[in-house]
């Protein structure tokens, strides 16, 4: 794909690259539009225009208006943007790294590990030493989920790395084994759980942005931002890797360095995303595919475009989740699955028709 055989190919490649750059701009505007939408819409009867007018004229907002816009909708919007971008970018990087269109961040054990961490915090929360619990407060689950995600990634990485070389295939297989182990430990803990804890677990598993707060945004935002900056620079290397690991090395790509960066970027981004929002499925796997269908597989633009589209879709899904059964709320994982699964099938079918796979 990045071969330089002939000027025709090259110009086509550049066209695609340019299309990708154009898509950056279009998607950024779309994200801004969707953000405005998400601030304006919700079950509470607060007019965004009235609030804008009040802010312009320096008038005081009522405490209800202030809380709904600045303490509920804005942190939710920011958290949704971060989480959506993190999941989609992680998916794009993983699919590039494993050269497998079905790869998602779950493959390197993050989801299973984070899930286990969350279950430990929910079920055994009572026996965690008081001082740790009091420092973390409401964020006990977030902290443990993040810890669990990182721990499994580190274990997988060390299992799959021999003499400074990480075997992607070993990582994939060990990931399955470790996922099963985490599942088994989770099962034991679920057995110990009481029914309230079981319900908490169910809701955690379905994912939600309803718990968004400024504290979560200030923790997740910078971390995900840094991960995105790192991920965006992996594009060239991942393009080379598409030709195979040996070829990529011959072209002059430091493959081990690339793998390290890719794995730990994804671990950071997904780890924190899962920790703050629970199990939100399908964004990581569907969004990169959508972007590939629309603009092509060049990783130099695919990664950022996936991030933007992921953010757009998750923010939209969140708007739906809070208005569809208002004043109650539908867990966002249900909505992403309802949207994601048919889209995924559509991609599969259209690919088969074109004979790509």
């Amino acid at each position, binding site marked *: 794909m990045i071969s330089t055989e002939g000027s025709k190919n090259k110009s086509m490649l550049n066209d695609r690259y340019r299309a990708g750059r154009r898509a950056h701009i279009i998607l950024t505007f779309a994200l801004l539009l969707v953000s405005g939408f998400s601030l304006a819409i919700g079950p509470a009867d607060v007019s965004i225009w009235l609030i804008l007018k009040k802010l312009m004229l320096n008038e005081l907002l009522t405490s209800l208006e202030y809380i709904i816009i600045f303490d509920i909708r804005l942190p939710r919007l920011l958290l949704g943007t971060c989480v959506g971008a993190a999941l989609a970018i992680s998916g794009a990087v993983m699919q590039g790294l494993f050269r497998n269109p079905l790869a998602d961040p779950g493959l390197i054990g993050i989801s299973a590990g984070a899930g286990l961490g969350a279950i430990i915090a929910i079920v055994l929360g009572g026996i965690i030493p008081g001082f740790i619990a009091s420092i973390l407060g409401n964020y006990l689950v977030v902290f443990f989920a993040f810890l669990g995600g990182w721990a499994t990634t580190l274990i997988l990485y060390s299992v799959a790395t021999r003499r400074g070389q990480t075997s992607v295939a070993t990582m994939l297989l060990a990931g399955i084994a470790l996922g099963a182990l985490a599942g088994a430990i989770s099962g034991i803990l679920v057995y110990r759980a009481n029914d309230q804890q079981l319900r908490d677990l169910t809701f955690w598993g379905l994912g939600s942005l309803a718990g968004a707060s400024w504290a979560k945004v200030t923790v997740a935002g910078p971390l995900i931002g840094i991960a995105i900056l790192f991920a965006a620079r992996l594009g060239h290397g991942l393009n080379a890797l598409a030709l195979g690991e040996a070829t990529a090395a011959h072209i002059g790509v430091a493959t081990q360095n690339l793998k390290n960066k890719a794995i730990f970027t994804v671990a950071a981004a997904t780890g924190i995303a899962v920790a703050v929002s629970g199990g939100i499925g399908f964004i990581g796997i569907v969004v990169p595919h959508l972007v590939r269908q629309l603009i092509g597989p060049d990783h130099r633009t695919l990664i950022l475009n996936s991030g933007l589209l992921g953010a757009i879709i998750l923010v939209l899904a969140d708007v739906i989740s809070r208005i569809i059964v208002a004043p*109650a709320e539908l867990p966002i994982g249900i909505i992403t699955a309802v949207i994601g699964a048919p889209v995924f099938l559509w991609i599969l079918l259209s690919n088969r028709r074109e004979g790509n796979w």
Partner: protein
Amino acid sequence: MKNFISKRLHGKIKGTPFEISIFILCIFLLSSSYVYADSKRQELDKVVSIGGSITEIIYELEEAHRLVARDSTSTYPRAASMLPDVGYMRALSPEGILSMDPNLIIAEEGSGPQETIDLLTQVSIPFIKISDGYTRQGIIQKILEVGDALGVNTKAEKVAAKINAELMDAESKSNQYSGKRKKVLFILSTRGGKILASGTNTAADGIIKMAGAINAIHSFNGYKPLSDEAVTVAAPDVILMMDRRGDHGSGGEELFSMPSISTTPAAETKSLIRMNGLYLLGFGPRTASAINELREELYSD
């Protein structure tokens, strides 16, 4: 403050106009906040009720006209299920509740999540948690706490006394039963062939005891999956289940054909009792009648 006032009131008003105006402002603010607090006390007319038994108690106290919304577990009485539903009590969304513009939230213990409660208290909407207990005292305590939250203490005491009498009556009838006590197994679900049964310290355990029966499982707390052998060892005389869709008696065949249950005395006599979940396990105003109904179902033969 007191010194300040007394100095001024002793006729030697020496302060500058600025000081005096501040003083007057203070008095004004104090009095207005007093009036405000007082008027607020009477205006708690937009109440959100979280928890099925809490809602029932509010209806029992005849304060239902003050309700603006309820949670998804509040399904009785019928009028309650017509109210807007703010979601499941443990997954409440702050904006959903705020959109109902409430000035009081009364919630069963365990409602949450904490982030939502924090936000609601920030807008200074009182969020009152009502303690939960699976005994007669627990129910009385609930009624008194709800009454206190609504500012109708005397009415609550009256209702509590009435319900206390009903419960004592129901319990003493259960205690007077002279025949052999039956062993009851409460099954929460049989999904995937696994039996999720109630141990001790649950609402099911409470109601079984109050109806004069024995919980067949006493080796663990809460609801847990039972192995087939444990079911056989527990040897229940009666199976108790919730009926969520009002399908009385359905599913009995299937249940008794499960290998673990087919060996129990309950399967021999085909003894299955199904009752509405909120009625049976709510521990609210209808519990006395639930006790009586369960006891009659248990010991009618």
